[in-house]
């Protein structure tokens, strides 16, 4: 058991830090605007092997051997100076791994390189109204007519679809097959008349999610990934290279440290909240959960780096993270006092400071308990997969 990284890794850390010192934040001559600067930075980071590590060079990746500790060091160093890593979104997060695993060579060459640079931005088309976590019951259908798939139906909760050019989606192509056996995985150009995109306004006033409607939308026959009827399994493929649970931990740890800051500048019972034994105790209670998650995640990363099975913690991560977020949000909402009544829900500025953060978090923390498999779904999975309890036979 050793929480230090050892000389080899510390050398690596120094290299990363040196690279960052010379390349981030961008300098004069790195490009004309912010987006171009970030693109250029990401190109250099790829060249050095710091991003897109699991992706072959021929598709624009840096093709590095999997090394969870290097990945963690990169994560820590980049986070320290707020430097961007891989492009966010489902294109890099899901599609690229899927194509590497199940796509044709043509698809890989066609889509991966431009997805990595951000030239192609992808929306995800999984959820449908009435089938949030229940993908097997989805109803969007695609029919092969000549050399084209003709797609009709509706998707929902597609993040930033309004600014995406392409979508990867699940559609029912084999209507006779039962449930999830009739689904295929298709790629689609969103810029066509058969596609209508509506932004969904959230309760926070923001609207990154969209509904997407298909009315005889079309896509070439060869834009299917894998075989017909295999879409369900293909959608569950993820790039296993260096996958880590660090992000949830980092999110909670950051919010917890902001909560401590909030307690320092808030009043409770007439004096600074941070001096109140009650608030101190409540903070320590939350810190217990945050640190438990942190060290369990270190343990998991370490064991996976050695090819060992870390047990049930991976399945717990999402539920644990949601519940910590709720605890942080609830204590924050106590500490903001009267400002709980304030939030400008029409403002486009980011909610990053002061009481706004906490009022916003009281709402947005709900997303964690809902999106990407609700807490109840997580509990089902834990009960079945980790505790070995009988499946819900109903």
């Amino acid at each position, binding site marked *: 058991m050793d929480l230090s990284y050892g000389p080899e890794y510390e050398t690596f850390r120094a290299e990363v830090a040196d690279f960052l010192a010379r390349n981030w934040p961008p300098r004069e001559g790195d490009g004309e605007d912010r987006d171009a600067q970030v693109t250029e930075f990401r190109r250099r980071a790829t060249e050095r092997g710091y991003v897109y590590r699991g992706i072959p060079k021929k598709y624009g990746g840096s093709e590095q051997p999997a090394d969870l500790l290097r990945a963690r060091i990169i994560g820590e160093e980049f986070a320290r100076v707020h430097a961007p890593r891989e492009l966010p979104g489902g294109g890099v997060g899901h599609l690229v791994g899927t194509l590497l695993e199940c796509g044709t060579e043509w698809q890989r060459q066609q889509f991966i390189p431009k997805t990595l640079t951000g030239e192609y931005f992808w929306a995800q088309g999984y*959820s449908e*109204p*009435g*089938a*949030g*976590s*229940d993908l*097997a*019951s989805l109803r969007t259908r695609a029919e092969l007519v000549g050399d084209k798939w003709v797609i009709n139906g509706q998707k*929902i*909760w597609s993040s930033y679809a309004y600014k995406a050019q392409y979508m990867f989606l699940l559609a029912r192509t084999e209507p006779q097959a039962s449930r999830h056996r009739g689904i295929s995985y298709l790629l689609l150009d969103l810029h066509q008349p058969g596609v209508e995109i509506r932004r*969904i*306004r*959230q*309760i926070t*006033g923001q*609207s990154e999610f969209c509904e997407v409607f298909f009315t005889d939308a079309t896509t070439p026959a060869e834009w299917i990934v894998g075989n017909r009827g295999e879409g369900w399994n293909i959608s569950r493929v993820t790039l296993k290279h260096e996958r880590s649970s660090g992000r949830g931990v980092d999110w909670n740890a950051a919010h917890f440290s902001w909560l401590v800051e909030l307690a320092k500048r808030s*009043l*409770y*019972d007439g004096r600074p909240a941070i001096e109140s034994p009650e608030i101190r105790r409540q903070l320590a209670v939350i810190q217990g959960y945050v640190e438990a998650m942190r060290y369990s995640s270190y343990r998991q990363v370490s064991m996976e780096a050695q090819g060992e099975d870390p047990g049930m913690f991976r399945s717990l991560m999402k539920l644990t993270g949601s519940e910590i977020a*709720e605890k942080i949000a609830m204590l924050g*909402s*106590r500490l903001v*006092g*009267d*400002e*709980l*009544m*304030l*939030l*400008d*829900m*029409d*403002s486009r500025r980011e909610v990053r400071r002061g009481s706004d953060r906490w*009022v916003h978090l*009281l*709402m947005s923390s*709900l*997303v964690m*308990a*809902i*999106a990407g498999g*609700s*807490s*109840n779904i997580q*509990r089902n999975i834990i009960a079945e997969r980790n505790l070995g309890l009988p499946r819900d036979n*109903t």
Partner: protein
Amino acid sequence: MNFALTSEQKAMQESLRRMLDERCSARFLHTFIDEKKDYDAPLWKLMCDLGIPGMAIPEAYGGLGLGVVDLALAAEMLGRAAAPVPLHAHWLAAYAIALSSDEGQRARWLPDLAEGRRIATVALCEEQSRWMPETWELAAGANLEGAKLYVPCAASADLVVVGLAGGRLGVVDLRASGVTVERLPGIDRTRPMAHLRFSGAACELLAAPADAASRMVDVGLAILAADAFGGASRCLDMAVEYAKVREQFGRKFGAFQALRHQLANLANEVEPCRGLYWFGAYAQENVPERASHAASLAKAHIGSRFLEAARNAIEYHGGIGFTWDFDCHIWLKRAMLDQAWLGNADLHYLRAAERAGW
């Protein structure tokens, strides 16, 4: 002992409920909150026709001469419907003015307030959550200099009862000079708020007894508790109804035992609050020695239950509950206001502990 409603009280709640079901539907509310108005004038007019603004104003001044329990029962219905009318603060202002020993003051303001021709509000809070009368610092006088925070409907109301140092109360004409209204980007658009800045604003001191301000605040707490109960029970109903119609994995949501138990737990948190808010209101006029304790306890407890219930209702709806166009968030945001206005649960739990005599 008869801790139950009179037939008049039941009828009043029922007629309010029916009227609000019809005139204050969720669809209506969505339009209202997107327009960002202070209140809905036609709904206010209907309230006036029913005599609601003057419920607790003595009949001699054109009111209905009812009591705090009746205000609370009505507040439950307003909370249930998320009605965008500035009644809570209006009631409090009228309650304070009715406590004046000066017949001239009562006669000057109460009839207009009873009929709702003029809208009144209350300005209580000062910096650092100084909601309680004993913490007010705004100097009393014929002209006010200073600020009051989180004043409901201030941009549209006609007059405001202002809490002053020493727990005194004054009345200020909101249309007169020396008053600046700063509208706030409020979380709860059914009850917009503003900060008030006074620079030489003319103020008439109320000839009210020394405990008038604290009685008014206690009544306010009881009313907010009732509002919160109405809101919380609406959240429960929404979640239960949704579970009955929505399907997942080929079954109704409500057939999943885990969700059924979560809803039963929600009911168990919400329903017992009814008796608590009843007593909170009842104590104001009938058990004065316990009025402050009951009011603070009810506000803290039910305000907390409402916030939980609203969050849980959204969670139990899944993604749809998180959208602006769905109804849930209207009550989550009311819960946030009910939690904070007049002081949050921490403040009132500690005040209840103080008044419990421990």
